[in-house]
């Protein structure tokens, strides 16, 4: 998102602004005075067209939908450097999570990999399935060959717990 996009955007949405601020929890984005210390340490900088302090500023002004649609929140590696550096105890990293939560809630575009991972965990309990590696010495390595116990089967109870938690949404 650039300044031009901002000028052609719909304008601030105060309802969404409140929702995002509430989701950001105890770290209040309106305490931010734009010193940009958060952006000074962001490892995702090169790819963030919008810097962390700008995201905070835009949300504070109510341009929440615009920020979500920019997709920038998904580039945050959650390294928490911004959270530690902020002199005002604002946590841009937590705000990024709040924006991602809102994107899911509003039915906005979310990374396809996330929905895949969520259903994989629901189905099997884990993000990944046991994999076999072929080493440079052309030996197949897996759990069995390393003498490790078999991975437990997915339990039905786990899936039911997951589904019950989802009902609270």
């Amino acid at each position, binding site marked *: 998102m650039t300044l031009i996009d901002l000028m052609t955007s719909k304008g601030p949405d105060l309802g969404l602004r409140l929702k995002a601020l509430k989701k950001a929890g105890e770290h209040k984005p309106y305490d931010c005075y734009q010193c940009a210390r958060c952006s000074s340490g962001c490892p995702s900088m090169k790819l963030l067209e919008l810097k962390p302090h700008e995201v905070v500023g835009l949300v504070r002004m109510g341009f929440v939908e615009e920020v979500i649609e920019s997709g920038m929140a998904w580039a945050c590696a959650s*390294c928490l450097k911004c959270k530690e550096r902020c002199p005002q105890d604002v946590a841009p990293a937590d705000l990024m999570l709040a924006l991602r939560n809102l994107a899911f809630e509003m039915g906005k575009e979310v990374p396809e990999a996330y929905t895949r991972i969520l259903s994989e965990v629901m189905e099997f309990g884990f993000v990944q399935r046991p994999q076999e590696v072929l080493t440079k010495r052309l030996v197949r390595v897996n759990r069995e060959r390393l003498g490790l116990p078999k991975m437990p089967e997915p339990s039905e109870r786990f899936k039911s717990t997951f589904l019950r938690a989802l009902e609270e949404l």
Partner: protein
Amino acid sequence: MAVRYALFLGCIIPNRYPSIELATRNVAQALGMELVDMKGASCCPAPGVFKSFDKFTWLTIAARNLCIAEGLGCDIVTLCNGCYSSLKEANIILKEDATLQDKVNGILRDFNKKFYGKVEVRHFIEVVQREVGIDNLRRFVKRPLRLNVAVHYGCHLLKPKRHREVKSVERPTFLDELVEALGAKSISYRDKMMCCGAGGGVRASNPDVALDMTKEKLKNIKDAGADCVISPCAFCHLQFDRGQVEAGLQLNVPILHYVQSLGLALGLEPEKLGLYSHAISVEPILKKLAY
């Protein structure tokens, strides 16, 4: 050392890097530490992806894992900063927030589980510090690790600071000390405290953004002349090891999990530490160590 911990494996270690699991079991045995398997444990769940989706779902699944350790009556040990941060944060939230604890227990009750808040979540590094201690660790070393090592802490071993027992998040030294206790030299390199790139769900959503960070970090490590990277996190390990292949980098920087480097120093054979199943061959460092 009569200590007992519930071993939380997570996803990456048992499924993608069983070599780290093998090393952990053998190192624990060598140190006289009892590790109890957590039957029925699931993904921690992955903090980047799950917290982005919905906080309550994340909290409930994490609580379920914590309950399994409570049932075993021992604290949890993890070897991945992601699992560590996810379980530790959930444990703190549930202990501090009675309303959320009741809500989560309302669900867990249906599955014969209840969160009491009886256990702590520890990282393997913390366990080594507490149960062995740095001076004692030196006495365990049989084959000093004569290598130049680039130490990578991983973000969530240190942050958020208010939930960690670390003196500094920008200039920590404890892991460098633990690596040097094994006989290695921890070298300094540019942007040492930078993220590996994988966290926050970025590896899943924006693999290019993640690899860009990985590339920069590994180039700095190579420029500093390191023989290898030592990291205490399975996810950083995966990102550095597989990342070099995915990004087509010709750097060939070998990656060791801290537990594997500890195993080498204890004199365990490379086979017992699963050192032959990394994407980037660790043979150059084994050669240097005269194996």
